[in-house]
């Protein structure tokens, strides 16, 4: 109203904080002193600083003296006539009580060692799995999150509508970068980035294979990759400057200072000199852009001839907007730019009958936020991770945690009758509900905490095997990231509240009188217990079914005919240190007379994934009768079809006797002909839109999978050229012992090209490597579902033990009355089997539906087999019976005299 409102007051929450620690009899004087000090501080330093000082003063009261004095019952001063008494209630934090709680907790835990062990180990396994999964998820979610002002960095992509389906692509033409920079001077930076296969770097006659990024000076302005040496603004100003990573500097220069040193880049014949102008810290593992060094785009050989070429797409373009410009505005400004720059493309699309999308664009340049790029598989051309992966892993982790929590809840509640009497006594002696709650919950917290510590410890020690087994790249540094620690803390809190809090709450709601009279019935928790068990088994069965279907699908893809023969073919990556064309010639000459070697050919693209782990793809747009057709543009050499057993449908293969075959002659695949809309394409001409030349079709082959069969077969156009480099050799052998042939090839390779590594592999291995992602996922799911079913069984085992313990007397009576052991086993098992059957009834349809959705992603897929599901169901029931059988059989065989004579 008056003065009180005007004069600044110390923060109320700090007063409350003070009230908690302050011994009540001292409250008045101490609070008074604090406020007086605050008033003095306000005069001296102003209200803001006074408040800070006040909080600091309050915090210093949290010292042992006051805590002891508060909890000790001794009172130096008689109760005061405090006009402002703090809320004064018996505190459960009294030291004697805490000591008692701890003692009781340890006793109960020790008395039931078995259950404690089950609880702790179950939670530990779950926490361990969660740590791994959340680390993986964390890595995925933090991709590209480390750039300053990352929300203003975008990658551009083309959107193009077409009559069939719209397409997005993040690969842009070379001139786009500079054009954007001149048309939109308001942008803070525009950079092109192209990171191809590894290139050869040499220094003092030492050779290294490194990923070199072609880029613009703005790269270092847009992205905040730290520079260890060199000047951010200057490092890429010079056309022959190169910025290398710290680890590259170490491998090449060792301890020497790399700055100003000359490096030579490129093949032996066409090397170029670069001077090190900067050293950047190694790019973080969770960066979408990954390379060892940066050089200027303009310093490459073909730059002059490509700088006006708007048709070839091979660069990613990143830009940083000023803070005042939002994405939508920039995208709308880009529209007019696109309309003039890509008028021809838009006209073509219109001719094809493309319809504009909901934003009214036929063709547009749009922006994707950098932090979303990793999850945008269209833009990264499949390099990123699918968002579904993050969901799947988080879901998996949550499921497994849930199962462990359910075990915990079930066991605690089932065992609560042993504690009921204790709680009754405590209540009748005046324990308040929240005190009991804290006690029981505290016990649960102890168990949770041991499980948590054990689990994270386990994860800590297993991390390298996890990485090796799943080809993952998580590392221990995440354990120190505040975000990750926060995540784990939240998980721990939720688990301990859920798993410990619920049973504690239930137990405290019991009425003391009933408990002490022994009237309390534990019938009702049965419903809860059963539904929890059903939940567990539903989740486990769901996971198992999904895993089974996924494995079937992967096997199906792997066994699928690929259109080429993968047997008896060896693929040799040429690498950067030698010339593929020369090697091809030498191998052909050397092995011409060898009966074990049938044919040798070369290509620009490997089939499957070889030991060099490189995938490359070259695509081109073809115009045929006004139709734009996108096709793989595959460089081959003579004998390609013969070596790979690709079926020739019509026409002929490339033949050395026709000199013109190496110029503008192509062989197309069947689906290419289909795209063109011709039955018999041999002899026809069509134009490629990049070179403007026209090619004649000399043959047509059956479709084959040039890339992984997880996608649809794409049209392929093969051409032969003596100028383009050959990156892979393929050798067809015909021998019962292909390994010997491989050794022979290796021996020859080492005599011809000793400087280059021989990285050959059999084609069937390569093809298997295509499914590596799927394989890793299915392995992950197999293990997760194994753990899920293991944890569920662990819980079932313990619950069965308790349930049977409670029915000891009933069983004794039944036996005395003449029941057979077998009938008792059936009786006891029936309850549990019933639960599993219900769980199956829920899980199977869900799995069927879910997996149907998943399979729809694949153009080639298995149909879900009922048999597999029946097998899973039978397995689950058997496992459940097996789990409880130990207990039931023991109970059934027990001498009834023993069970009845007690009491």
């Amino acid at each position, binding site marked *: 109203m008056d003065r009180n409102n005007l004069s600044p007051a110390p923060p109320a929450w700090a007063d409350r904080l003070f009230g908690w620690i302050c011994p009540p009899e001292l409250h*008045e*004087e*101490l609070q*008074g002193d604090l*406020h*007086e*000090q605050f008033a*003095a501080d306000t005069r001296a330093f102003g209200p803001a600083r006074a408040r800070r000082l006040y909080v600091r003063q309050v915090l210093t009261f949290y010292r042992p003296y*006051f805590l002891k004095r508060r909890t000790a019952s001794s009172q130096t001063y008689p109760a005061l006539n405090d006009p402002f008494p703090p809320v004064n209630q018996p505190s459960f934090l009294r030291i004697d009580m805490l000591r008692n709680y701890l003692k009781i907790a340890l006793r109960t835990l020790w008395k039931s060692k078995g259950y404690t062990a089950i609880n702790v180990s179950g939670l530990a396994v779950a926490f361990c799995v969660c740590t791994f999964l959340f680390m993986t998820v964390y890595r995925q979610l933090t991709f590209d999150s480390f750039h300053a002002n990352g929300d203003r960095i975008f990658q551009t992509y083309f959107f193009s509508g077409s009559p069939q389906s719209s397409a997005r692509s993040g690969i842009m033409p070379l001139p786009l970068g500079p054009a954007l920079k001149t048309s939109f001077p308001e942008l803070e930076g525009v950079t092109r980035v192209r990171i191809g296969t590894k290139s050869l770097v040499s220094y003092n006659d030492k050779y290294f294979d490194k990923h070199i990024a072609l880029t613009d000076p703005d790269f270092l302005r847009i992205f905040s990759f730290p520079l260890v040496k060199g000047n951010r603004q200057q490092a890429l100003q010079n056309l022959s400057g190169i910025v290398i990573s710290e680890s590259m500097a170490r491998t090449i220069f060792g301890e020497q200072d790399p700055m100003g040193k000359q490096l030579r880049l490129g093949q032996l014949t066409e090397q170029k000199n670069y001077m090190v102008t900067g050293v950047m810290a190694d790019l973080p593992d969770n960066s979408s852009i990954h390379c060892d060094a940066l050089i200027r785009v303009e310093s490459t050989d073909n730059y002059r001839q490509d700088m006006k070429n708007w048709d070839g797409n091979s660069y990613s373009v990143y830009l940083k907007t000023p803070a005042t410009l939002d994405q939508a505005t920039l995208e709308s400004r880009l529209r007019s730019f696109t309309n003039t720059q890509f008028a021809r493309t838009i006209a073509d699309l219109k001719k094809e009958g493309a319809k504009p999308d909901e934003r009214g664009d036929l063709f547009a340049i749009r922006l994707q936020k950098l932090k979303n790029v990793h999850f945008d598989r269209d833009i990264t051309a499949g390099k990123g991770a699918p968002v579904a992966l993050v969901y799947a892993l988080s879901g998996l982790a949550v499921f497994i945690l849930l199962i462990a929590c359910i075990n915990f809840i079930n066991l605690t509640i089932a065992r609560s009758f042993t504690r009921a009497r204790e709680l009754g006594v405590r209540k009748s002696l005046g324990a308040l509900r929240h005190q009991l709650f804290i006690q029981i919950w505290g016990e649960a917290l102890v168990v949770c905490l041991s499980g948590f510590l054990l689990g994270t410890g386990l994860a800590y020690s297993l991390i390298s095997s996890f990485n090796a087994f799943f080809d993952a790249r998580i590392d221990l540094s995440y354990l120190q990231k505040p975000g990750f620690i926060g995540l784990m803390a939240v998980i721990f809190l939720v688990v301990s509240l859920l798993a410990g809090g619920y049973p504690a709450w239930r137990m405290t709601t019991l009425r003391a009188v009933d408990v002490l009279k022994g009237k309390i019935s534990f019938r009702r928790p049965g419903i809860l217990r059963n539904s929890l068990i059903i939940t567990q088994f539903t989740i486990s069965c769901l996971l198992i079914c999904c895993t089974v279907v996924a494995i079937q699908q992967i096997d199906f893809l792997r066994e699928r005919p690929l259109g080429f023969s993968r047997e008896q073919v060896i693929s040799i990556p040429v690498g950067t240190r030698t010339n593929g064309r020369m090697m091809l010639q030498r191998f052909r000459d050397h092995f011409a007379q060898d009966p074990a070697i049938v044919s040798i050919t070369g290509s620009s693209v490997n089939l499957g994934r070889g030991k060099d782990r490189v995938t490359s793809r070259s695509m081109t747009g073809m115009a045929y009768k006004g139709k734009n057709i996108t096709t793989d543009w595959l460089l081959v050499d003579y004998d390609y079809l013969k070596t790979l057993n690709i079926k020739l449908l019509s026409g002929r293969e490339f033949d050395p006797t026709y000199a013109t075959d190496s110029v503008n002659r192509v062989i197309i695949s069947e689906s290419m002909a289909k795209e063109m809309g011709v039955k018999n394409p041999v002899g026809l001409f069509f134009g490629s839109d990049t070179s403007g030349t026209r090619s004649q079709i000399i043959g047509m082959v059956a479709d084959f999978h040039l890339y992984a069969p997880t996608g649809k077969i794409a049209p392929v156009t093969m051409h032969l050229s003596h100028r383009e480099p050959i990156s892979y050799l393929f050798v067809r052998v015909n021998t019962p012992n292909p390994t010997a042939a491989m050794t022979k090839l290796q021996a020859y390779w080492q005599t011809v090209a000793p400087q280059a590594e021989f990285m050959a592999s059999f084609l069937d291995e390569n093809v298997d490597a295509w499914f590596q992602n799927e394989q890793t996922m299915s392995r992950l799911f197999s293990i997760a579902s194994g753990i899920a079913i293991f944890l569920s069984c662990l819980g079932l085992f313990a619950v069965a033990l308790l349930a049977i313990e409670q029915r000891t007397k009933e069983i004794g009576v039944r036996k005395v009355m003449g029941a057979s052991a077998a009938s008792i086993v059936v009786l006891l098992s029936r309850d549990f089997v019933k639960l599993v059957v219900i769980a199956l009834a829920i899980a199977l349809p869900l799995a069927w539906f879910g997996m149907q959705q998943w399979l729809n992603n694949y153009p080639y897929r298995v149909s879900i087999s009922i048999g597999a599901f029946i097998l899973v169901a039978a397995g689950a029931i058997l496992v459940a019976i097996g789990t409880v059988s130990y207990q039931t059989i023991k109970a059934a065989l027990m001498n009834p005299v023993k069970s009845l004579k007690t009491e």
Partner: protein
Amino acid sequence: MGRSYLGEFEELVLLAVAVLDGNAYGVAIADELKQRTDRAINLSGIHVALYRLEEKGLVVSELGGATAERGGRRKRLFSITPLGSKTLNDMRDVRNQLWDAIPRPSFL
């Protein structure tokens, strides 16, 4: 030593109580010590020392002197007891004796 042990800070606080002569309470003592020693003083530290001194019987206290700044709360005013004065004197004597016992090189 029959006397109870007195820490350095406790001694300072006890001296401040003596100095302030009947007007010694938390904030006043803190101000006094801040001015004289130029070190950071916590109210909580002062109070702990005061209560310990009171337990040892070196000071006595009474409530009184509420002000508006204190939100109408009373102060606990401490005053030194004869035992407290004697302790201080004893300590001073011990110190003086020790000082006197330091051998002094003669300059003259």
